[in-house]
């Protein structure tokens, strides 16, 4: 009976295919951190409220703490550590460095993945809560960035520099 509570799961993380048998209760975040040693996504609140566990899941930003790993067999996952390449940082990560978009850095991998996903959403023309005209492509001003990044909290309150970094990366 106990074997019914475990499942073999394959995920593709930062370009590497990983296979592991997990307890069905395992969240995607715990799979990454505890079973695969992928520690870029951070466990903050563990309830979907802080955004520090954000990754790109099948190309879109998502919290990993409220997803069961077993429900994401064969998923493509890119963490903050998998952005960019060996020789250069991803432009969003570089912009966070250039603008001091962090202090302690704990929320930063989630912030960066969220910003990368968010910029794709803007590029696709998706409106936000503060977009005035629903049918026009949004202009990425400060209000838009703040609204679209509201799922990522920063206890150090580095928000002004995070907004500046995202402006820079969006150019």
């Amino acid at each position, binding site marked *: 009976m*106990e074997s*019914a*509570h475990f*499942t073999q799961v394959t995920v593709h993380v930062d370009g590497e295919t990983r296979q592991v048998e997990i*307890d*069905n*209760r395992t*969240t995607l975040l715990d799979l990454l951190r505890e079973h695969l040693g992928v520690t870029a996504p951070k466990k903050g609140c*563990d*309830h*979907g409220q802080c*955004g520090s566990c*954000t990754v790109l*899941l099948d190309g*879109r*930003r*998502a*919290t990993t703490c*409220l*997803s*069961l790993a*077993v*429900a994401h*067999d064969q998923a493509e996952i890119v963490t903050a550590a998998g952005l960019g390449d060996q020789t250069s940082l991803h432009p969003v990560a570089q912009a966070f460095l250039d603008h001091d978009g962090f202090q302690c850095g704990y929320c930063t991998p989630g912030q960066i993945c*969220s910003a990368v*996903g*968010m910029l794709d*959403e803007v590029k*696709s*023309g*998706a*409106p*936000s*809560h503060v*977009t005035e*005209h*629903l*049918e026009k492509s949004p202009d990425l001003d400060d209000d838009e960035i*703040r*609204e*679209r*990044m*509201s*799922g*990522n909290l920063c206890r150090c309150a580095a928000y002004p520099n995070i907004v500046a970094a995202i402006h820079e990366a969006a150019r």
Partner: protein
Amino acid sequence: MNPFAYHRATSVQDAVTTVAERPDAVYLAGGTNLVDHMKLGVAETALVVDVGHLPLYDIDHLDDGSLRIGADVRNADLAAHPIVRSRYPVLARALLAGASGQLRNLATTAGNLLQRTRCVYFQDVTTPCNKRSPGQGCSAIGGYVRYHAILGASPHCMATHPSDMAVAMTALDAQVVYVDVDGEHRLPLTDFHRLPGEEPHRDTNLPAGALITAVEIPAPLDGAHSTYRKVRDRNSYAFALTSVAAELVTEDGTINSARIALGGVAHKPWRAHRAEHALLGQPAGEDTFTAAADHELAQAEPLEGNEFKVELTRRTLVATLLGLMEGHQ
């Protein structure tokens, strides 16, 4: 969290049959509410049936002008859909006012409807709660009631349904399409969620084991203007203290049609029939809107500590209707 078995449903039929044989099973889609509640010890199951991979992710614009939204359509995709943005601004606005960008990428249409009606005490297993354990008592009485109901509550439960999407769909006369072992059925969304009454543990009238496959929304009325306004304690990523979904049709300054629903104020999305009735045939303007809001809220029974929500809802409703007259969307 209790150990559980996992089954990835291969079809709607497979999902429904599996759950019919296992009353202790639950459906999983985006997981943003269910997994949270499993972690908190609020939800328990022996079998998770994953319906998040079923082909229920299409948004179809049907010949009669209505919109059929698959149960697994992500909230983000529904909000960004061109037809939703152009023909149902109230729905796009409501979706965009809910949760965060990351969660909207996970959360589904059916999951949003089926998220639990809840309050802080429901989510804290160390406090008594009639919704979690019928008969245990309600911790909200004399407690923290800022997010609690002012309409339709019972002495057993005063929690609110936190969805924004469902408030807009309630105003738009949406139908919930579901499948059980007997086949496909439809339920008006206004009859889908329940008031707490004597059975606060029941959030909806969806039969046990039934699986939502789609939500259908009729074509918008000709000349309709609609929008959604949400009032909350912070600018973004917070539940509503109160919210208003409204659609108006006016001709030569007279209101020909009004559809209104309120959020954050009741155990279910609250269709404001009394306000609608008071608006019909009247001149569109502040006096009419105020009278309609007063008419609706005459039945409000606020709790000790959330009396402010009556006035807040009244002002929000009037401001939303005035905004529609000024062309806001």
